[in-house]
């Protein structure tokens, strides 16, 4: 173990500096902002690579940023830990982050607020690095909240549109609700174990200090936190709304990195999560439900980014499936591959939007393969990848998840394993269908929009191509090895790679994806009549899907309205009427009494004299007889 490596600190600080510098300098030379910000991320990426290279030789790296809270008996330093898990995450964050920064230079070239944008983006990278590098839960929480803030700022980047700004607020608040879980977990763990250090919290002797019921609660609270950040039921509706932000943001934050923080957290705190086997079971069911709901909803969306957003939610559900069965490594594997192809998808979609003059509705696209061939190619590759078709990246990770689900040992899940497997496979098919649909609607057929779509500049297409390449090769390269690599920080997983398998087996494994894409082709390209028949037959379902399961409405009715009502009641009935009114009425009562006593002095001296006589007589009566 190496302590105090300055590279680690620099890696984190570089984007922060980038944020400040690009903000300050960017106001003066707007064009420089993107370059500066990208450079900062590049530095981080480079440092990550060097550290990653050194990891095998020297074990883990730690460094301390600040002693933060250090009192007599309480010590909560700001320390960073670079182990294999954080290394992988860092590579994803800085690597893909760098690509997206590059892309954004082109994408945001026309925007007035570029400096602000890149500054936020860099700030995000900084926060995300803190999150994945945090050695103790408070540090992770700092990053956790930091990315939430950046997400808020970037979703509402075009703040003159109140809807966008509201979407940002929604994201933040939903995340905040989740954060309650994080804080509760920290409180429980600290109270029980006296430490919040993630390394400590992996040790069985430390974990054994947690009483059983609290262990359950802590695990659940952590998962609750993760549902907020990673858009799982019940806190997932913010993610589709978050598409209000610029597309690079969607790619970076709401697809590749931030939303996977929940998965990362589960992995980091696997010891706590698994204290009570009921917690993983809950995670699994929630994840499955999320995957299904999101996938079906994606079927009925027309906004290209919304489709991708629901797809992300659904894929995150897949990751949590792995978490639920204890296959953290596999989950991380899917995080990585998902980062490749989803970032690619988003950036391509961004290019499409950019090329179509900010049109996002797929019904007004089509036939774009002619005008934007490279984008079309990348999007296609990524679609195949996410559909889970061999040999592209998605196949390996998704297959690994399905495999691990079927081999679960969790007492609460054991007997349901086949059902879960079946449902997960259905979701996989569904994924392929909606992705296929989006590809078909966007790139095939004939152009239905107005104006002339055009291919995007090189600085935008290059990152997309790199990501497409990664989507193709990433799975092959990382299959098995990544899960193996993560065995140290994460609990061992029984799933193995696919090395020995034949092509036929692979193709058989890709069957869901192939079927899905086939269905999509059938329904949306060749046999559109059937689509209409189906649509008529299954209209309630379509309604449900198109209406996003009415989750927003339910949330509005079950949470927002009651809170608003409660707030009005608290203000009007309680605060103004009773508390304030009580005080005021005390005031008016005393004024009235004052008026009364004042009127006793009527000006009539006879009355005064009578008053005095009466007073004397009362004194006599009251005190005269007393002995």
């Amino acid at each position: 173990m190496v302590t105090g490596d300055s590279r680690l600190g620099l890696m984190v600080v570089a984007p922060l500096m980038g944020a400040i510098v690009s903000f300050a300098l960017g106001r003066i030379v707007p064009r420089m902002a993107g370059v500066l910000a990208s450079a900062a991320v590049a530095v981080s990426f480079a440092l990550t690579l060097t550290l990653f290279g050194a990891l095998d030789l020297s074990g883990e790296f730690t460094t301390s940023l600040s002693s933060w809270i250090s009192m007599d008996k309480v010590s909560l330093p700001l320390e960073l830990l670079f182990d294999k898990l954080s290394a992988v995450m860092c590579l994803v964050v800085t690597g893909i982050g760098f690509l997206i920064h590059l892309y954004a230079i082109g994408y945001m070239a026309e925007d007035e607020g570029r400096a602000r944008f890149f500054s936020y983006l860099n700030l995000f990278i900084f926060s995300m690095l803190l999150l994945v590098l945090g050695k103790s839960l408070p540090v992770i929480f700092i990053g956790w909240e930091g990315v939430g803030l950046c997400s808020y700022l970037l979703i509402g980047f075009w703040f003159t549109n109140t809807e966008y700004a509201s979407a940002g607020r929604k994201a933040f608040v939903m995340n905040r609700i989740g954060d309650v879980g994080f804080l509760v977990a920290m409180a429980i763990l600290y109270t029980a174990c006296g430490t919040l250090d993630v390394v400590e919290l992996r040790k069985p002797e430390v974990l054994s200090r947690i009483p059983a019921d609290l262990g359950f609660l802590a695990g659940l609270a952590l998962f609750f936190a993760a549902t907020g950040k990673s858009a799982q039921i019940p806190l997932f509706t913010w993610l589709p709304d978050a598409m209000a932000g610029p597309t690079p943001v969607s790619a970076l934050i709401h697809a590749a990195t931030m939303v996977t923080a929940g998965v990362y957290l589960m992995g980091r705190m696997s010891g706590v999560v698994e204290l009570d086997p009921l917690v993983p079971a809950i995670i699994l069911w929630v994840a499955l439900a999320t995957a299904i709901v999101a996938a079906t909803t994606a079927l009925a969306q027309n906004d290209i980014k919304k489709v991708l957003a629901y797809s992300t939610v659904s894929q995150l559900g897949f990751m949590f499936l792995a978490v639920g069965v204890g296959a953290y490594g596999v989950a991380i594997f899917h995080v990585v591959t998902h980062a490749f192809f989803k970032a690619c998808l988003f950036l391509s979609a961004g290019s499409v939007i950019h090329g179509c003059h900010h049109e996002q509705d797929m019904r007004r696209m089509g036939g774009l393969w002619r005008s934007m061939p490279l984008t079309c190619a990348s999007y296609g590759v990524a679609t195949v990848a996410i559909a889970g078709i061999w040999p592209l990246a998605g196949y390996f990770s998704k297959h690994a998840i399905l495999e691990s689900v079927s081999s679960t040992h969790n007492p609460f899940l054991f007997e349901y394993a086949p059902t879960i497997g079946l449902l997960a496979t259905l979701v996989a098919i569904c994924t392929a269908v909606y992705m296929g649909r989006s590809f078909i609607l966007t790139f095939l057929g004939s152009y239905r929009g107005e104006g002339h779509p055009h291919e995007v500049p090189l600085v935008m297409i290059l990152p997309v191509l790199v990501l497409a390449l990664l989507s193709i090769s990433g799975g092959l390269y990382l299959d098995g090895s990544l899960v193996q690599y993560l065995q140290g920080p994460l609990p061992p997983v029984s799933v193995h790679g696919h090395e020995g398998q034949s092509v036929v087996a692979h193709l058989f494994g890709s069957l869901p994806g192939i079927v899905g894409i086939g269905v999509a082709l059938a329904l949306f390209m060749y046999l559109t009549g059937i689509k209409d028949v189906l649509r008529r037959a299954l209209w309630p379902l379509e309604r449900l899907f198109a209406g996003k399961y009415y989750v927003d409405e339910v949330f509005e009715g079950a949470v927002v309205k009651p809170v608003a009502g409660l707030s009005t009641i608290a203000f009007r009935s309680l605060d103004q009427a009773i508390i304030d009114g009580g005080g005021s009425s005390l005031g008016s009562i005393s004024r009235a009494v004052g008026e009364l006593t004042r009127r006793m002095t009527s000006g009539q001296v006879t009355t005064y004299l009578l008053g005095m006589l009466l007073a004397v007589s009362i004194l006599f009566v009251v005190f005269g007889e007393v002995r």
Partner: protein
Amino acid sequence: MSSLLGYLGLSLLLFVIGAIGVCIRRNAIVVFMCIEMMLNAVNLSFVTFSKLLGNLDGQIAVFFVMVIAAAEAAVGLAIIISVFRNVASVETSDAAELKW
């Protein structure tokens, strides 16, 4: 000696009558006269006590009370005249500008 105690009772009675008069009459001069009557009632007590106790202090007190009553009369009547000049009445109910 019950006769002497009777004087004490009479004194109290007269005092109370005077006090009641003070409270029910509105003519300032009559009120003043009632007060004089109250003082007189007290004087009777003084004299009676003096008799009962066998010392002359009570009677001396009465003497001084008379002096004071005389001065009071002078002052009081002057005040009443002064009020009469301002209000054109000696009814206390007319001199009720100051109130509340």
